[in-house]
Structures are given as C-alpha cells and as structure tokens.
C-alpha cells in the first residue's frame, strides 16, 4: 500500500498572504509599551588598547542607560564554537566597529546624538589586515602564527602523482567578502518577565542565542527565553550574530528595568556584522593527456577576521568541497583560517564551499585550455561515478547519473549551438563579446561528519485538544519555506488537512532543540524527524501504522475527552543513517550523509567599452532528492543563483584600515531584476531514503555554481583568464588591458 502518499501535497506559502499585505510582524514592527531604543558605540580602530572613553559634557547622561563590559553578570564572552569574542570590548579592541559601549533612551534621535558624543581613544597597535601575507611578529595575536584552524585532507600520494603526471596545471584564485543584505536588518527586543530575560527578534538559531545568553548572563536555562520574530532573510547572517545582539539588548533591558529594542540601520548592519570569508586558493593539478585528473594539490586560506566565530567549520566545509564532484586517486587539500583585525567573518549560504568550488571549477577550464580540450569533456571524464570516492574517501553510491545531469544542462542551455553562434558574433562585433561557461559541483547536505550526531536534535509534534496538531521545533522560517514544508510533511504523514496543522515560530520555552536552521538541513533532517514524531503520536494513541486523517483526529479528541495528566506529544530524536563513519582527526570517511549535485550553464555578454559583464541566460540543473514543493524549491535555486551572480560580478566590499568603506546600498551593488536574466531551473529527483519524503538539502547548493560558470563564460568570451571575484568592470579592464 502506498503510505505515506509522499509529496502529493504542495501548498502555497502558509504565511504568504500575511507578507504580501504587510501584516507580518518583524521585530521593528512590534509596539511595546515603555520600550527604549538601544544603540552601540563602536571602536574606531582595528587594534589597540582603549586609553579613554570620553562622554561629552553637552549631553545629560543621567537620561541614558549606559552599559559597558563591567555590567556583564557572567563571563564577557560570546559563546559560539569558542569563547574568544567579548560581548563588549574591555580595555582592548581587535577590529573596527567592535562594540564597546551600549546606550538606551526612549528617543532614537537623542540616541544618535549621544552615540556621536562618546569618544573612544585607542592607543593603536600594528594591525594584521591582509590574510594572504604572513604576519610580522608585532602583528601576531593568535597562537604563534595567527592561524585559527589548520585542517588537512590526504588521499594517496599527491607528490608522487604530480611528479609522474604528463601535465601540471597551476592556478591561484581569490574571492572577496560578501555582505548578506537580508532585506530586514538585524534587530532584537529584550524584556524581563517573571524573572526570565526574554529576547525576541530576527534570528536563525534560537538555541545558539539561548546558550550564549546562559553563558554571559550566568543564568540557568529556564531563566532565559528566546523567541523568533518574523525574520526577513538570513542567509547565514543571522546564524551567529544574533547571539551578540541578544546579549546587547538584554544587558540594556536588565540595567534599564524596561524593554529595550535594538534595530540596526543598514549602514551599521553592513559595517559591523559578519560577512562571507574572503578566500585565496592555490591549485596544482596533475593531468593526463585526455584530461583525467591524476593529482589535486589544493591550498586554501580563509580570512577569519578578529574572532573565531564559525570559521573552523566554514574551513572544514571549504576543504571537503575543494576537490569538486570529481574522482581523483591522489589528493592533498590543506586549509587554514587566519586571524586578521577585520570585522569577523561568519556563516553565509554555502559556508566555505562556494569559495573552493569557484577555484576548482575555474581551474577545470584552465586545465582544458592548457591541454587543448573541451571544458565540458574534461569535466565529463572526471565526474565521480557510483562506487568511486571523494577526497575524504567517502564512497558515492546514490544512483545519481551526474553525467546525464551535465548533458541535460547542455541541452537546456543550447550550449553547443550557442558556442558556434558566439564565435561568429564575436568575430563580427566591434565591442561586444559573448561566451558560455559551465560549472559542475556538489553540496553536502546537513552538518559535516559527526555534526548531526553531536547536535542530538529533538522535535515534538503535539496533538491539541481540538484535534489539531502543533509542530514544535527550533527550526526557523526566514523566507526559505520552513513553515510551509513542515506543514506539508506533517499533513502528509498524518493524512490530515493542512489547516489542522500549526507551525508557530520557535520559542525556547515551548519548543525542543531541533538544531540550528543552517547547512541545508531543515527539510531533510528535521523534516524526517517530524515524520517519525508523527508515527510516535500514532503509537501513543494505540493506532496502527496506516491510521490516517479522521481516524487520528477522532482518537486525539477521545484522548482529551478523558481527564489526563500530560499532553499528547509525539517525539523523535536524531539517529544517523546506518553505515556512516567519520574520522574527525584524520579527516577521512563519510563527510556527509548525502550530497546534492548540479550542473549550471551561464551565457554572458562583455562590453569592451565599459568592461561590464551581463548575464544573458542561466540554466540550473540539479539533483536534490525528492522536491517537496516545486515553487519553493525553484525559488531557492533562483534566489541563490542571483546571489551568486552578485558575488561573482558586482558585490565588492571595499576595505580601508579594516573597515568596510562602502557600507551602504548606494555603492555596495547587489543585482536588481534588470541586471538578471530569468533563471531556468530543472530538477532531477532521486529520492534520498533518509530525508523527509526523500528530500535532500537544497538551500546552499545554488550559491556554489554561478560565479565559476559566469567567469568561465567570460573567459570563453574574451580569451582572458579571470581568477578573482567579484569581476567588477575595473578588475576586468585591468585584466584585459594588461
């Protein structure tokens, strides 16, 4: 019998109408009686000892709440992976815009004046600002060499294989920082309620915030509560930073004895919060005459910024993906995350993989050019086949035809015909040059290695007295569709109509820790737990496995008709798929439960008068397991591709003395809808047995492919060899005029 019906249901976005009509309430929209505004006074210097904090006498400071590091009840540490980042700088600053003093007042206008009336004098010390350059002794601030984390993957004997290879191709690739530009800036409200400090705001990971608050406020779990407000985009930017903001607003609220809300202006958000790690990647590849990869020697450097934040895990994902979707017997990948006196870099969609896949996929085209072969064919003969292994030695055996995926992308994009047309066009046109480029890639779904086991995620599916169902997880809706997909999964599993299912935004006072909403894990991992929690409800009701719909509904109502002690809650706890083994020390084994696979094709037009590059057409073909909601899934791919177009061609963070110079949307350029072509999306579905209804992760994958596909297309169009992104007009001009 066909149970569960497996994805027959595809709902419109549950909260869609509320968003379309402006009724959705984000943190800045919440009216709170007696609420003060909070603002932050920040370091003007990248590094040094704070000599003096001067409060201008023109301001009546008795009317302000003023908080500094001495107001912390617990350790002055933001608990992420490490605890090196202070909540507020004490006597020392390590990056420009580091928070030092917090102010609160009922008037935002008065606050702005007050922030400008605080002067922080710093005795400056030598700052380390370029992660690519080894630090001088006076710049060393972390360990002996400013290296936060050093990881190595070794497979076979790369030196020998390079020595034996008929051709060795080398390349160096660089990517810049990228700002998230979630359209809703960071914001957090804090208030006290019955001895509990409550924060409510824009965030991805309620229990990350909860842990950080327990630590720095020295409070037990039940005296800290974290509630998600409607969240206007995250992309990783609201993974780690909200812990800082929650602590800031909580400290002000505790001192004021009143609610305090901090909502960043766009310029503050851009200047002071985390960004994508800049990268430098050097690749040496041993290649056979037919293009077969004989050896991959890859060095990865990431700019970690001034605090560790999530950099070790970003580095881990970066090096695991650096080999690309290819089989190679001899691989060495070495990665380092380096301390600098820059604003800390953090999570951003793709989490290190876009950086290394940019390098690897650009390099594949360089290999093809070096040996005079077609870039598509060089990829085709190296694409991993079932039974072969990745760089960590993980055996891929998932029934996905990666070769067919590539072929489909070529067909959909009319790749070969376009190549021929472009040759004629480029020969005849005085200043326009057209080209097509390909990227083939993979993205590991869920946490790396033993990460999912360590998270130990739990979900609850609660039956309500009216016969309805409430889904209780810590997984947040930030636009990607959690609410809708969870509703679908539970409705499908229980055979109930969707309007009987409620998916409230997470509240740590009610909802168990289903882990952070990151790593493309929500639908696949947490969704699968929801299925099992639904089965648990059936079990508790004494119903057979095939009981559905009205049978469950009436059993629930009957349950509540008799007086009971406890609620009726179906529970599930994470269990790893069988046969997964990961060696964290040696970096060997099954890095991910599964991978999503993709082939993207970009067509570009370069204008040799203005050096601008326009993407004319984009085709994105991917295998992501079962697609649970086609509209939402397509939206994830299209949105990720356009973020990738921005990263590859436009989005340049300009730095001066460790500060972002262009922290405003006027001169940090993200794509508009007039800069982007329609993104043509196709899915190949090979259900993954351990994901909800057969789903794999999808959210990060589309960030990986656009930049290399586009630069490969520029290379084809111009005959040049661009290796640095963003490929803004100035950079392309320098390259083509060199």
């Amino acid at each position, binding site marked *: 019998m066909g149970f569960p019906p497996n994805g027959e249901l595809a709902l*419109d*976005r549950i*909260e*869609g*109408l*509320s*968003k*379309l*009509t*402006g*009724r*959705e*309430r*984000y943190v*800045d*929209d919440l*009216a709170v009686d007696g609420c003060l505004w909070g603002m932050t006074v920040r370091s003007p210097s990248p590094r040094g000892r704070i000599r003096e904090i001067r409060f201008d006498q023109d301001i009546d400071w008795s009317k302000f709440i003023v908080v500094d590091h001495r107001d912390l009840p617990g350790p002055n540490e933001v608990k992420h992976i490490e605890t090196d980042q202070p909540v507020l700088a004490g006597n020392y600053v390590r990056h420009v815009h580091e928070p030092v003093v917090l102010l609160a007042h009922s*008037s935002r*206008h008065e606050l*702005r*004046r007050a922030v*400008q009336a605080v002067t922080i004098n710093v005795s400056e010390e030598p700052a380390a600002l370029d992660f690519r350059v080894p630090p001088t002794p006076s710049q060393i601030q972390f360990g002996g060499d400013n290296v936060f984390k050093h990881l190595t993957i070794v497979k076979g004997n790369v030196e020998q294989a390079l020595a034996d290879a008929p051709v060795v191709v080398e390349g160096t690739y660089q990517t810049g920082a990228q700002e*998230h*530009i*979630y*359209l*809703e*800036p960071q914001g957090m409200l804090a208030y006290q309620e019955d001895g509990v400090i409550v924060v409510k705001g824009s965030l991805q990971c309620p229990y990350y915030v909860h842990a950080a608050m327990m630590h720095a406020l020295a409070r037990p779990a039940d005296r800290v509560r974290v509630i998600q407000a*409607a*969240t*206007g*985009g995250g*992309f990783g930017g609201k993974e780690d930073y909200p812990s800082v903001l929650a602590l800031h607003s909580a400290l002000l609220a505790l001192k004021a004895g009143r609610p305090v809300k901090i909502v960043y202006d*766009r310029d503050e958000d851009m200047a002071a919060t985390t960004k994508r790690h800049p990268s430098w990647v050097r690749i040496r590849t041993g290649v056979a005459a037919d293009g077969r990869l004989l050896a991959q020697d890859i060095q990865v450097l990431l700019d970690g910024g001034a605090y560790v934040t999530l950099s070790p895990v970003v580095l881990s994902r970066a090096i695991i993906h650096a080999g690309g979707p290819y089989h190679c017997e001899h691989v060495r990948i070495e990665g380092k995350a380096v301390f600098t006196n820059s604003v800390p870099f953090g999570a951003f969609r793709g989490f290190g993989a876009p950086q290394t896949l940019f390098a690897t996929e650009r390099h594949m085209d360089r290999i093809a050019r070096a040996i005079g072969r077609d870039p598509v064919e060089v990829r085709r003969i190296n694409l991993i086949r079932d039974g072969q292994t990745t760089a960590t030695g993980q055996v891929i055996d998932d029934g996905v035809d990666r070769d067919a995926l590539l072929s489909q992308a070529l067909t959909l994009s009319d790749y070969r015909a376009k190549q021929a047309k472009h040759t004629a066009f480029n020969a005849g046109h005085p200043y326009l040059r057209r080209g097509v480029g390909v990227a083939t890639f993979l993205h590991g779904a869920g946490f790396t290695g033993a990460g999912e086991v360590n998270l130990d995620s739990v979900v609850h599916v609660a039956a309500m007295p009216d016969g309805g169902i409430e889904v209780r997880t810590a997984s947040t809706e*930030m*636009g*990607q*569709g959690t609410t809708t997909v969870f509703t679908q999964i539970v409705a499908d599993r229980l055979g109930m109509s969707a309007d009987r299912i409620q998916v409230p935004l997470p509240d740590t006072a009610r909802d168990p820790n289903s882990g952070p909403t990151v790593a493309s894990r929500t639908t696949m991992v947490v969704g699968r737990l929801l299925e099992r929690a639904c089965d648990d409800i059936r079990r508790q009701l004494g119903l057979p496995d095939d009981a559905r719909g009205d049978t469950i509904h009436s059993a629930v109502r009957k349950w509540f008709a008799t007086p009971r002690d406890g609620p009726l809650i179906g529970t599930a706890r994470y269990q790893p798929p069988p046969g997964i083994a990961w060696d964290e020390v040696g970096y060997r084994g099954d890095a991910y439960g599964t991978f999503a696979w993709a082939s993207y094709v970009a067509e570009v037009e370069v204008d040799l008068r203005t050096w601008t590059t326009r993407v004319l057409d984009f085709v994105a073909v991917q295998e992501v397991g079962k697609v649970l909601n086609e*509209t*939402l899934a*397509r*939206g994830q*791919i*299209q*949105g*990720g*591709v*356009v*973020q990738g177009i921005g990263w590859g061609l436009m989005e340049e963070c300009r730095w001066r003395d460790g500060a972002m110079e262009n922290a*405003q*949307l*006027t001169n940090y350029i*993200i*794509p*508009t*809808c*007039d*800069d*982007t072509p*329609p993104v043509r999306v196709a899915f190949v579905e090979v259900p993954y047995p351990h994901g909800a209804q057969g789903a794999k992760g999808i959210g990060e994958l589309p960030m990986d492919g656009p930049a290399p596909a586009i630069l490969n297309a520029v290379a084809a169009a111009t005959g040049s060899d661009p290796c640095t992104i963003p490929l803004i007009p100035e950079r392309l001009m320098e390259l083509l005029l060199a």
Partner: protein
Amino acid sequence: MIVPALDSAMTIEFRLNGEPISIDIHPAERLLDTLRYALRLTGTKEGCAEGECGACTVYLDGLPANACLVPTVQVRGREVRTIESLDGATLQPFLTGGATQCGACTPGVVMTATWIRHHPEILARHSIRALMAGNLCRCTGYDGIVDSIEAALQEDVIE
C-alpha cells in the same frame, strides 16, 4: 554627520489611505517614521533608508515613492497610500507565483507591481524588469516576482 536637536513640532494635514488625517510632526521627520511609529502602519518597511531598496514604497498622489526620502512635511495637503490600503484578494497571483519569500521587500514590491497593474500601458515602453529595478529582493532572484506580475496582468485582462 551632525544630528540636530529635536524639539520643535508642527501640525500638518493630508489624506492617508483615502481618509483625511491631521498629525503633529517634527519638521525633519521622515514619512516612513510617521507611518511606522506615529501611525503604527508597519506594513511599509525600512530596508536601507537611502532610497535604494524600495521596501518603503508608498503612493504619493498616485505615484510610487520611497517613504524614507520624503520629509513628512512635504505631504501636506497631498494623498498618501500604503500597502494597508490594498485588497489582499487581488494578490493571489503573487502567492501562487512565489513572489514572496522572507517578506521584508514584499510590501514595496507589491506596491510597485500593483502600480504597474493599474498602468499597463507603460509596458508598451518599459519592461517589467526595468520597472521593478527600484525594488531590491535578496530571496527570490526576481523570477517569482516577474512571473507573478505577468500572471496578474493576464488575470486583469480577463477580468
């Protein structure tokens, strides 16, 4: 940047979502803040505060405008319409077409898109993509928005 002291107030009158309104404001107050904080019409969003993102799009005498760039004093005697004045029933194509994800840009997108629906003749000279270029969206990649507008225009023709 020098932030001036804020102590004076003045009264102005204008029409808001079809109704006359009288309100005390500061001479330098932004329309966006008057709407959001004084009048609690929070459907209009702040995305950038410098007229780049379009999240605060309202209609000023029937034309789309960025409320973050309009001093409230300038709307004296004029007509302002916000997202709250739109009929949700007309937005079904945007729901099914995937025009909204996180929702932060959405009210502004809907205001510009609805303006295009009310002035379809402009499409003879400008593309939907060109007309929507003043509304930044970081989630959808814009196809969901553009496809929804096309679908809505089809529906409008049939009706």
